C-alpha cells in the first residue's frame, strides 16, 4: 500500500477527515521545517536581496545597485584570481581523488589481510576537522622545521617552497585536501566493488579478458552510480572548501590560494562589503549547481539523443 493511501486509510478508520491526516504530517515535520526556514532559508533569501544592494550594516541606508555587485565581481582582479584558483583547485583535487580513490580501491579489494584495519584507518581523515588538517599540513610544510623539507634535506633533494611560492601554495593546499578526502572515495568505491554482481566478472575471466579490459568494459559501467555519487559529493564540497585553506594560508601568498569562499569571507569581514560578498557567495553556489546539472544533464541528453 502506498504511503498516501495508507494515510488516508488510517484517517478513515479513525473517523478523521483526510485533511486532518494531511495536517498530521505537517505537525510532525513542522518544527524542523520552521527551524530550517528561519535559520537557513530566510538568511539565504536575505543575502540574495543583499546581493543587489550596497549593504552597510551600521548605517540604516542601503542603496539599490541592481546587478552591479555581480558585474563588479567579474571586473575585479581579486575575484577573477579566486575564480582561477577555484577552477584549478577543484579540477586537480577532483581528478586526483577519483583516480587515486578508484585505483587504491581496485587494488586492495579482495581477501587481503589488514583490509579491515585499513578500512578503519581510512575512516579517520574524512572525519577530522578540516581546520586541524589545515594547521597540521601548515606544520608539515613548514620550511624550517617541517617534516617534508627535513625528508628532502636528508635525501639531498632541492627544497620546495611549499607555502611561500604562489604556485606551490596552491599545490600544497590541494595535497591537504586530497589527503583528507581520497579515503572517503576509497571507502565508497570499495563498498561499490563489493556489491558488484559476480557473474559478469567470472565470465570475463573465463573469456580471458585482461584486467584493464575488465575494468573499462565491465567494472566501470557497473560502478557508474557510485561514480556519480562520488563526483557529486566532491563537486559540492570543493566549492564549499574554506577551513583548510584559511588555516594553511589565509588565501595567501598574494591571493594565490584564495578560493571563491575565501574571497567572499574576505569581502564581508575585512572589506565590510556585505552586498558584494553575498553576490560572490551566490556565484560559488551557481557554479556548483551548473556543474551538477552538467553531471546529470549531459548523460541524460546523450541517452535521449541516441534514442531519437
Amino acid at each position: 500500500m502506498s504511503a498516501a493511501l495508507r494515510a488516508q486509510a488510517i484517517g478513515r478508520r479513525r473517523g478523521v477527515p483526510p485533511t486532518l491526516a494531511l495536517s498530521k504530517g505537517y505537525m510532525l515535520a513542522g518544527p524542523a521545517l520552521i527551524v530550517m526556514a528561519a535559520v537557513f532559508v530566510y538568511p539565504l533569501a536575505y543575502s540574495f536581496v543583499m546581493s543587489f544592494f550596497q549593504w552597510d550594516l551600521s548605517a540604516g541606508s542601503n542603496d539599490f545597485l541592481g546587478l552591479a555587485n555581480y558585474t563588479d565581481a567579474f571586473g575585479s582582479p581579486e575575484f577573477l584570481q579566486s575564480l582561477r584558483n577555484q577552477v584549478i583547485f577543484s579540477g586537480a583535487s577532483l581528478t586526483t581523488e577519483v583516480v587515486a580513490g578508484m585505483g587504491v580501491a581496485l587494488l586492495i579489494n579482495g581477501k587481503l589481510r589488514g583490509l579491515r584495519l585499513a578500512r578503519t584507518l581510512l575512516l579517520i581523515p574524512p572525519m577530522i576537522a578540516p581546520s586541524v588538517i589545515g594547521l597540521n599540513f601548515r606544520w608539515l610544510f613548514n620550511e624550517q622545521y617541517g617534516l617534508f623539507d627535513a625528508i628532502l634535506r636528508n635525501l639531498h633533494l632541492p627544497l620546495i617552497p611549499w607555502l611561500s611560492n604562489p604556485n606551490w601554495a596552491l599545490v600544497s593546499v590541494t595535497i591537504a585536501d586530497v589527503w583528507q578526502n581520497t579515503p572517503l572515495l576509497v571507502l565508497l568505491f570499495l563498498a561499490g566493488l563489493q556489491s558488484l554482481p559476480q557473474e559478469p566478472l567470472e565470465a570475463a575471466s573465463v573469456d580471458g579478458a585482461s584486467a584493464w579490459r575488465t575494468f573499462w568494459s565491465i567494472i566501470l559501467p557497473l560502478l557508474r552510480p557510485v561514480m556519480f555519487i562520488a563526483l557529486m559529493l566532491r563537486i559540492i564540497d570543493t566549492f564549499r572548501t574554506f577551513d583548510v585553506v584559511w588555516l594553511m594560508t589565509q588565501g595567501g601568498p598574494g591571493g594565490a590560494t584564495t578560493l571563491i569562499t575565501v574571497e567572499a569571507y574576505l569581502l564581508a569581514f575585512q572589506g565590510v562589503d556585505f552586498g558584494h560578498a553575498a553576490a560572490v557567495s551566490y556565484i560559488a553556489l551557481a557554479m556548483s549547481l551548473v556543474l551538477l546539472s552538467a553531471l546529470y544533464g549531459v548523460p541524460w541528453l546523450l541517452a535521449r539523443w541516441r534514442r531519437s
Partner: protein
Amino acid sequence: MSDQALQRAGVSISFRVRRRLPIGLMARYAVLVVTIIITVFPLMWLLITSMRSSADLFAVPVHIIPTSVTAKQYISVFSQYRLSSYLWNTVIVSLTTVVCVTALALPCAYALARLRLPGGRVVLFLLLIMRMIPVVALAIPLFAVFSSFGMLDTLGALILTHTAAKMPVATWLLMGFIQDLPKEVEESAAVDGAGTLRTLVQIVSPMIAPGIGASAVITFLFTWNDFLIALTLTSSKNAQTLPVGLTNFVTQYGIDWGPMAAAGVMMIVPVLIFVWFAQGLLVKGLVTGAVRG
C-alpha cells in the same frame, strides 16, 4: 583457427595470469601498506609534535625521532592559552545540537517517508539544495541577522545555526532508514489504535536505532569540527569554540606549534573514539547518506 581453439588459447592465457598471481598479490599488499602509511603518518607527526619539548620542536636539522617525551604542551594549552572555556563551549554546542537535530529531524523524516505530505517532493528537493550551500553563503547573512537581534557571540546563536545546518543531512539519512522498514509493523500498530506519535516513539524509533545513532554521530562530529560558523558568529571566550581557539596560537611572533599540536590532538580524540566504537554506524551513515544523496 577455430573458435574452440581461440577459446582454449584464452583459457590458457588466463591460467598463465593466475600462475603469476603471487607477484600481483605482493603488489596489492604493497599498495595496502603504502595507503595505511600515508593515512596515518601526518596524524602520527601531529601526535609526536604534541609530545615534544619546545627546544626539540625547533631544532635544525629536524629530529624525526623525539629525544624525550613531555606533557608540557598539553598543560600549556590550559594554563597559558586557557582553552578550557573553548573546549567547554564546543562540548555544549555539539551535544545540544545533537539533541535538537534528533528531536526535530526524526518526526520530519517520518512524515516525509510515511505520511501524505503535500509538497513533500519540494521539501526533499530543498533539503538536497541545502546540503550544497557553501557555509560562507549562510554565515554572511546570519552575521547580519544575529547582529540585528543582538545574538552575536552567544552559544544560542551557534546551536540554532548548527541545528538548522545539520538538519538536512540528518533528515535525509533517517528517512532512508525509515523507508527500509517493513510497513506491516506500523500498520498493525495503527490497527491496534496507536497514534502516529506513539507509533513513531515506541515502534519505529527502536527499530531504526542504528540510523538514529548514525545520524547523531555524524551530526556531533560535523558540529564539533565546525570552524567557519563559529569564526563568523563569535568574537570572545563567551562562545568561541576549540577550532577557533586554534587560531589563537597564531601570534604576531609566529605560531606556537607545540600547544597547537596538543589542541589539534584533542580535537581528533572524539573522531578516534567514534571511529573505534561506532565504525559500523559511521560507514553506514556516510555510505547510506552518500548513496541516497
